[in-house]
């Protein structure tokens, strides 16, 4: 748990260059070299390990607003997938000596081992404010020899990197082969989970509730889904622009046609939106953090008086659907079930005539609060044929797992 501090190690200069020309100087953190991606900021004060390994961060350079990162080191239990997905990592004050009884190595070592280029010592608050005002944009981090080129050259390279809008990425992060997460305890249901970049905690949360989860690749077809004889179908979170997700949208429409109970999270919510005929759009700077207030429509169907939950978010895109009206869709009536109180962004959808719902945020948490774990119970109730599924288990489940 305690490693000896290595002293104030040699400092390799690094520079972060944004596509609008603003740059920040700092020191190399993790691997030395260069990297490109979309600059986004995450306001979580805990959970860097989960964030780094969340496939939804694929091709993004993540700026941590919390200044001290790496304090608890790296353990082998908390990753959300088998590798770090962020394209680059920006922190202010990386830890030298991690301290936690579960820690097995330092974050610096882990980033280096996985070749993730990072930068430390930058004014992350200034950078965050810049991104808030100007919007998420392309960025490059250059350290060591890569940083030696002039800023104009570096800027040119940033500007020639691909943008996030229009990017079809879930195929790059999803599993290539199906696998099964067995139910814990007595098996109650089978779920086919379409992996668009699924986080490890999601099947875990289902398994805890007696669900056997068959995780399928992003390009799974309806035959593959129904081959596992699912009681419900799940669409996961994932990276990229939902407007490019033609295959998952088509697949979901088939599931909706058949009326199989359906649950979507994050990217899965955007796909449900598109499947229902709503548009999706890119947010200026997205929601990334673990403190977002989301309100659920009350049982009277109004927003006022609806329960508020504090939730984990990681999304740069959102569904464009009316908050105060029921919409007619090819699959019957649909309504917005959850809304973010900070900015009125759609955070959840549900069908009123078919067993399908989704949320834009992360009820599986990891990192983040467990306020929304009830949604998994709701999925269970839906598969159990509970007719009043919409409000079947509003009792929050705190601490199903921690």
């Amino acid at each position: 748990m305690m490693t000896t501090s290595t002293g104030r190690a040699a400092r390799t200069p690094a520079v972060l260059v944004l596509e609008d020309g603003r740059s920040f100087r700092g020191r190399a953190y993790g691997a030395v070299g260069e990297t490109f991606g979309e600059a986004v900021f995450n306001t979580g004060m805990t959970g860097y390990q989960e964030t780094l390994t969340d496939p939804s961060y694929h091709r993004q350079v993540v700026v941590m607003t919390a200044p001290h990162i790496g304090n608890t080191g790296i353990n082998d239990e908390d990753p959300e997938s088998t590798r770090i997905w962020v394209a680059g990592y920006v922190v202010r004050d990386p830890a030298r000596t991690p301290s936690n009884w579960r820690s097995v190595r330092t974050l610096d070592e882990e980033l280096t081992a996985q070749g993730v280029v990072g930068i430390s010592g930058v004014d992350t608050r200034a950078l965050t404010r810049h991104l808030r005002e100007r919007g998420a944009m392309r960025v490059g981090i250059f350290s060591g020899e890569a940083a030696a080129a002039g800023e104009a050259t570096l800027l040119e390279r940033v500007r020639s990197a691909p943008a996030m809008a229009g990017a079809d990425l879930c195929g790059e992060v999803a599993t290539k082969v199906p696998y099964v997460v067995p139910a814990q305890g007595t098996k109650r249901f089978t779920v086919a989970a379409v992996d668009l970049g699924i986080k490890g905690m999601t099947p875990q949360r289902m398994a805890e509730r007696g669900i056997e989860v068959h995780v399928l690749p992003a390009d799974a077809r309806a035959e593959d889904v129904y081959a596992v004889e699912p009681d419900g179908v799940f669409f996961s979170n994932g990276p990229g622009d939902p407007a490019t997700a033609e295959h998952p949208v088509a697949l979901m429409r088939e599931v909706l046609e058949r009326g199989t109970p359906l649950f979507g999270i994050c990217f899965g919510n955007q796909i449900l939106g598109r499947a229902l005929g709503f548009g999706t759009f890119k947010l200026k700077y997205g929601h990334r953090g673990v403190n977002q207030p989301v309100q659920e429509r009350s049982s009277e169907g109004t927003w006022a008086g609806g329960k508020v939950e504090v939730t984990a978010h990681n999304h740069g895109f959102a569904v464009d659907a009316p908050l105060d009206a029921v919409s007619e869709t090819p699959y019957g009536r649909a309504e917005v079930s959850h809304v973010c109180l900070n900015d009125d962004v759609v955070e959840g959808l549900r069908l009123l005539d078919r067993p399908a719902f989704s949320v834009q945020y992360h009820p599986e948490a990891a990192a983040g609060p467990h306020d929304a774990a009830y949604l998994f119970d709701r999925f269970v109730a839906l598969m159990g044929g509970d007719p009043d599924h919409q409000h079947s288990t509003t009792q929050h489940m705190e601490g199903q797992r921690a």
Partner: protein
Amino acid sequence: MPKRTDIQSVLVIGSGPIVIGQAAEFDYSGTQACRVLKAEGLRVILVNSNPATIMTDPEIADATYVEPITPEFVEKIIAKERPDALLPTLGGQTALNTAIALNESGALAEYGVELIGANVEAINKGEDRDQFKDVVAAVRARTGHGESARSVICHSMEEVLAGVDGLGGYPVVVRPSFTMGGAGSGFAHDEEELRRIAGQGLTLSPTTEVLLEESILGWKEYELELMRDKHDNVVVVCSIENFDPMGVHTGDSITVAPAMTLTDREYQTLRDVGIAVIREVGVDTGGCNIQFAVDPADGRVVVIEMNPRVSRSSALASKATGFPIAKIAAKLAVGYTLDEIPNDITEQTPASFEPSLDYVVVKAPRFAFEKFPAADDTLTTTMKSVGEAMAIGRNFPEALNKALRSLEKKGSQFDFATPPGDKEALLAKAARPTDGRINTVMDAIRAGATQQEVFDSTKIDPWFTDQLFLINEIAEEVAAAPELSPQLLGEAKRYGFSDAQIAAVRSLREDVVREVRHALGIRPVYKTVDTCAAEFAARTPYFYSSYDEESEVAPREKPAVIILGSGPNRIGQGIEFDYSCVHASFALGEAGYETVMVNCNPETVSTDYDTSDRLYFEPLTLEDVLEIVHAERAAGPVAGVVVQLGGQTPLGLAQALKDNGVPIVGTSPEAINLAEERGAFGRVLEEAGLPAPKYGTAYSFEQAKVIAAEINYPVMVRPSYVLGGRGMEIVYDEPSLAGYLERHAGLISEHPVLIDRFLDDAIEIDVDALYDGRELYLGGVMEHIEEAGIHSGDSACALPPITLGGHDIKRLRASTEAIARGVGVRGLINIQFAMSGDILYVLEANPRASRTVPFTSKATAVPLAKAAARISLGSTIAELRQEGMLPAAGDGGDLPMDAPISVKEAVLPWTRFRDVQGRGVDTVLGPEMRSTGEVMGIDSVFGTSYAKSQAAAYGALPTKGRAFISVANRDKRSLIFPARELVAMGFELLATSGTAEVLKRNGLNATVVRKHSQGRGPDGEPTVVQLIHGGHVDLIVNTPWGTGGRLDGYDIRTAAVARAVPCLTTVQALAAAVQGIEALTRGEVGVRSLQEHAAHLTAARKSS
């Protein structure tokens, strides 16, 4: 769902006097709450006995009762005001206990008052150890996490002794139920300690109940601040991690927000458990604080306790996050839900979220052990600190270094210049938590200790100690560098090094480092506390400095006035000064200035982001203030800096600020110096023809001897330049003078020692006045109850003076004016006089707001601090009279004959301290100030006012029973009359043989009781100490013996403290108490709001 419509009026109970464990934070919370409730259109009725609070300003509530916070008085207020609801969660344990008592007595039911913000069941579940264990067990069943430390509840010493075995032996923790700030709790390592601590705890607990607990010493300690609304929405406002591991009260620990060493999973476990606890306890609306211990070896979580109310930690969390817990708790109590309340800072987003911090907050406690030399300074689970400083930085080292320098205490900053000493000795020393342990740890690191060694000695988390190693490495680099390069200097600043620290390391002068730094363009930027880590734009300019890239100070048009606050509370400089600063901010804001507050005390109203236009949460050092002035000058015009309202802290900066070209408004630094420098002030007095007691300044013992002999004993000796009478003593002869100088070895070589004639039997008088260069406004004249020689801060006093006549006031006014003119005051001045025989001596003059300004302002219904601020910026007294801020005619010196009498009484922290043997510390008053706070009793006659002040400070005076009397020879003569009164009122007198003899000769029968030193008599007759402990004494009069023998009554007085029996240590106090008892006996003591008093006074002023 909007606010409830069935509540039209609400009674808010404050927390009373500032005591250790319950301080200014409740003024901050209570003021916020009252304002919110008033803004919601409710009639707000407030009771708080503490005049030095903003919340008792007449405009904060509709009816403000400065009355004792006891069930009896609060019931009188309820009977008079008939409020619909009672909000008890904002006044600390005092308010909560009072509310529970009123509920149990049936008073609430009788008058149909609904408790809001917490229900009795929830309060009991949260506070009762046994019930709380059930809560934790239920939570574990639901969440799978959290447990209680193994423990046993005991109601007697037998149960206590039996309980230890069941817990696996010593050490064990003792915690009395229902006491505040952990009073009476502690670690027992053996039976002797256990008997002592548990005995004390059983006495202190109102339910005679203590909890014995397994030791979880050395575990990591955390706190969560939660809020819940009536829809069961719950948010965690803030997590706090203690730098000092379990074993040190959280109020005495260095604490850090947010938590630094938890993974998300562990944090979410605490969050889940916390939310489950608040639900299980049933806090329907409002805030609560939950404390956890986490085993560093395996993460086992123990839930230590919860407070179902706002607390010191919630005030800290509010300041640390920008999320105003008390304000929101008040809104929730009247029916709102979290999503209906906007986040003040962003204005666009709701309060139903959890703040995200992109900075680190460090709170450091400030102690006053130097005031209680006999007290054991080991930090335990009983809180002992008297104040705290908070600092914000972009990383932990920056925040920590800022916090340590905010403490303004010699040696509080890390010292990298002097040799650290022996590693092993330092590590051994660091194992015992004390004030300044972190400095010992740093010294151990400097002496070569390893991470493992530091951990083994202190159990401080290795992440924190690594940060100390990092700070030391930078200090070493700064020391070793051939020159101070821009990179290195910038690096040191990024880790919070002050210019002074860098100067010490480089053997340079501080101003040289600053010049170099400025020449290199290395200056701090100011970032905003915005609740959301920059995710949304902040509308509230709440700033902290950091050596980072981008500053967020916006340009402005209006001229700014920068008000320097008073820093961490300490004995001698407390909430009274914050009161004046806040008033200045209000008055100057109204007068059209942009007000800029600088302070580092998280407990205060001044550091509420709502108080001033801009808030800089920064240390009050020259460096930090100069940088703020620089930043504000860059933002717009600066009219000046106000230094005379925040006590000695800003006053001490005045000259240096001026020397650096900063405009000081009000009394000039030269004038300040004139009053403080003995010789110069002597000339002022001489010119005005005013006598001062004979004095001399000694630079050696020989000189001191000669001077003292010349002046005649007894003399008062003290170091020059002190506040609060630090190190001041009365010495009666040459050997005691030698003893004094020996005890304060090193003092005389650094600072001269002042020797004053001690005026035995003189009446001490305090005057607060305003002076604008032409006119004097005598704010108020306070006559001390105790004689001169007892520090004015510890003495009770009456306003208007009760024994001074018109002629005396005339002389006081003339003297005050002569001094104010001679010194060159523009604003407030406080002068202490002593009347001995018929001579009026000037003891000292302070050209600044004094401790008594809030008391004087409330007693006379005139806002003196507001007026002073305006005068500082050029207004005249005549103009302020015209405006109505000051009365059109007359002043505080010529109050109408039927003006109410206000009595101020000091509150002393005796119960908090024990010597190393665990015995109480002596309670005798002296020239060194030791009180932490004050109360005010106000009524139409002195006796009733005094009785109220006693009830508010210590508990009601007895109206019958046994009075024990034992006084020094010199007091025996003046004892006769009050003793006779006591007998007349039906008291039975007990006395020691000497005193009994005197009483007998004067026709008063007293039962002779055995002295403590005599021990039990042949037939088992108890000693007086045993009688006190047995509960057979209702009133104690014990004045200390003349020379050298000041400890004779020690056991009597400590027993009185332990049993909470009123104990008077001067005959003057006895005389006042007799008047009070008489008033109580005579009949009904009523209650009257400040607003009623003011209306009465204004009417009387007009008619006179």
